[in-house]
């Protein structure tokens, strides 16, 4: 049996979602962004809302996200994605609007925009990739870098006495009356990826209800920034990141 013979519709178990373009991802090998992109694109495809979705890309590793999602997108200034998304949603309230942001973008330079968009209860989805480091600029300390964790700007490890504490912004966001659904997931195993997919789907379905901001944090690895192999980085993430950033729903809609 030649290879060609098995590529038939009845044998299809998995395919690239049409909401992702054919461009080659620029992300490092083993990085969680690719999986996170795919899951979100897959959900947009499943819900049939490609024509009605507008995304906002951040500044950071996912600055070029607009090359990969086959939906209309805007590129925001560093940290301003929730404000840009607010502008979009206010003039096109019937569209699905999401931002896709990293920890530096969302929890440092854009803290005010994040908190106030959530506190207003903007009917948008915020996808928050938390890998505890500035990946794009070369591994500097992030607002979510763990105590003692080494980075290029905390070369002896994060000293909380002088560098401050990691910010659990997702717990903070969950306290705001404007948020409707807040959850923390990961994409490092098939099981976790499936849970993240379900969370993203719920979040986009909730957007139709106009009940407030949905916020999906994805704790992710950064092999390059952490200076580890992908396998090592996933193990390190489980052992160090998850105890500090425990996975699971933080705020779910009241029944």
């Amino acid at each position: 049996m030649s290879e060609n013979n098995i590529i038939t519709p009845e044998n299809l178990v998995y395919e690239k979602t049409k909401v992702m373009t054919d461009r080659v991802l620029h992300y490092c090998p083993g990085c969680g962004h690719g999986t996170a992109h795919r899951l979100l694109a897959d959900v947009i495809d499943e819900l049939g809302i490609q024509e009605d979705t507008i995304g906002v890309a951040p500044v950071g590793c996912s600055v070029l996200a607009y090359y990969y999602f086959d939906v209309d997108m805007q590129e925001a200034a560093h940290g301003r994605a929730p404000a840009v998304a607010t502008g979009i949603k206010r003039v096109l309230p019937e569209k699905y609007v999401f931002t896709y942001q990293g920890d530096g973008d969302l929890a440092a330079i854009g803290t005010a925009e994040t908190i106030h968009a959530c506190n207003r209860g903007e009917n948008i989805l915020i996808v928050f990739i938390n890998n505890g480091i500035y990946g794009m600029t070369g591994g500097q300390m992030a607002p979510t870098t763990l105590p003692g964790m080494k980075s290029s700007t905390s070369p002896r490890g994060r000293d909380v006495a002088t560098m401050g504490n990691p910010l659990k912004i997702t717990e903070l966001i969950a306290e705001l009356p404007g948020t409707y659904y807040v959850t923390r997931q990961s994409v490092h195993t098939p099981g976790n990826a499936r849970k993240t997919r379900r969370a993203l789907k719920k979040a986009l379905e909730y957007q139709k209800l106009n009940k407030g901001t949905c916020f999906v944090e994805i704790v992710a690895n950064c092999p390059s920034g952490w200076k580890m192999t992908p396998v090592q980085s996933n193990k390190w993430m489980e052992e160090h990141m998850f105890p500090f950033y425990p996975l699971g729903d933080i705020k779910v809609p009241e029944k």
Partner: protein
Amino acid sequence: MKELRLMKGNEALAEAAIRAGADAYFGYPITPQSEVIEYLMRENPVDRTGMQVLQAESEVAAINMVYGAAGCGKRAMTSSSSPGISLKMEGISYIAGAELPCLIVNVVRAGPGLGTIQPSQSDYFQAVKGGGHGDYKMIVLAPATVQESVDYVKLGFDLAFKYRNPVMILSDGIIGQMMEKVELFEQMPRTTEEPEWATVGKKPGRDSVIVTSLQLQSEEQEKVNLRLQAKYRVIEKNEVRYETYMCDDAEYLFVAFGSCARITRKAMELAREKGYKVGLVRPQTLYPFPEKVINEFGSRMKGILTVEMNAGQMVEDVRLAVNGQCPVKHFGRFGGMIPSPDEILNALEQKIIGG
């Protein structure tokens, strides 16, 4: 039928925004322009036209909301005063880079820093020379009356969409706060057009729309810059606006803009009473600057005095335009002080006629 009203500058401008068919206003309170958002909130234009009004958490957020709405092809605007405009400069640079149309109103107060809430023209450089990072230009309209504040809202949106470029109305605390008779234009419908560059949802059969100012390859970024520069040359050719007063027989010339031009006009009349043949050029667009007409006047004037409520900003553009053909001097009051006609006349006699 003409609709005449006695209105405060800021409120008239806000009413003009509703009537110009604006889709969205995003702002943050700051003196002396808070009446713009107060008027809009009171008027609740969502009931009149569907226009969205939102008080943002900061000037930074407000301009980025403008970016988002403008990226959807909507008529979006913000207003602020000097310290707030400084905060918006990041967003304005991105808007210029992404070639989005929008309207930004600066009701200028004196700086630097927190300065004072009194009127000034000290943001001229910031408005016409850049302000944010990168090579870009805003079209800058300088109203001298409440009427022009109203008319420039409509003109500003038209120019913004014609060139896909940010437009600034550079007003000041005098124009914003004073009440004048104003003729309001009729309500215009909000646009239902969906420009092909706007993110409105990817339609089948077309590529996704990307609104961005990022081009990582230098060759591509240079092309973006060349395209912007080509656009600016067209704007400079087509959009220069100015008024002249009593220039036909003039031997001396004032150049002044905005509220300061009105005071200078009075000074010109006082000078004429004393027998000095003085004219006045009032640029209505500060970018593009009325370079050509000032160059022509420069060739036949004995001297030119710019009158500005700053320490000497527009005078640099006047000197560039005159190119050494006659002396060009500056007279200004600043820090929130407003020059009197007598002071201006005195400066003309000291610096130009006797100088």
